[in-house]
């Protein structure tokens, strides 16, 4: 079974531009989450999508947004890029069903290889 894939793997942008990152989850996984990793802040949760709906959101400004498509693929967008947005962006998927946690193993998250964004 193929793992989580992310495109592009590397990206260089300049301040003020916007960027869109893509994530394809493991087949059968309906939940997609996004995380940002920086040397200063570590790994931080951005948001999670399930059935095309944002189910949870971290503490990031509105410049960070996302969406999920009917095939569970997800994109995240960062507008008006700042130097501090330079980071590794990681996408994770899991099988979990909506609402309850009837099967605990469905909670396990699997990560993609990440997109390394550099803002100049």
């Amino acid at each position: 079974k193929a793992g989580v894939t992310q495109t592009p793997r590397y990206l260089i942008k300049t301040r003020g531009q916007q960027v869109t990152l893509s994530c394809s989850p493991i087949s059968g996984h309906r939940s997609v989450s996004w995380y940002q990793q920086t040397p200063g802040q570590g790994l931080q949760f951005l948001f999670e999508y399930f059935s095309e709906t944002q189910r949870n959101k971290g503490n990031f400004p509105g410049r960070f947004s996302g969406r999920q498509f009917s095939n569970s693929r997800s994109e995240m967008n960062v507008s008006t890029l700042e130097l501090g947005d330079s980071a590794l962006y990681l996408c994770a998927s899991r099988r979990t069903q909506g609402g309850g946690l009837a099967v605990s193993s469905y909670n396990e998250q699997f990560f993609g290889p990440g997109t390394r964004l550099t803002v100049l």
Partner: protein
Amino acid sequence: GIQVEQSPPDLILQEGANSTLRCNFSDSVNNLQWFHQNPWGQLINLFYIPSGTKQNGRLSATTVATERYSLLYISSSQTTDSGVYFCAVERTGTASKLTFGTGTRLQVTL
């Protein structure tokens, strides 16, 4: 929010040595995972272990949920074990959000 502390922050071992990494968390959890981040940044799943004990080859993990800690054991370490090990938890009642510790950076030398 939930706090996750990992210790030690850095660890240097000679090949063949054993080590124990610790993860303390401040609230009840319904998900706890251990990851190894490779030099290219990918997080590799080691264990999904909200409670109990699991073993996978030279690695094993134990989570004592009632006392809010988890341990990762690495035996007979190899140079390929080098990297950063993260513990991540999902607080009970907060769907899907993993909170990560700051990691333990392990260097295994010959």
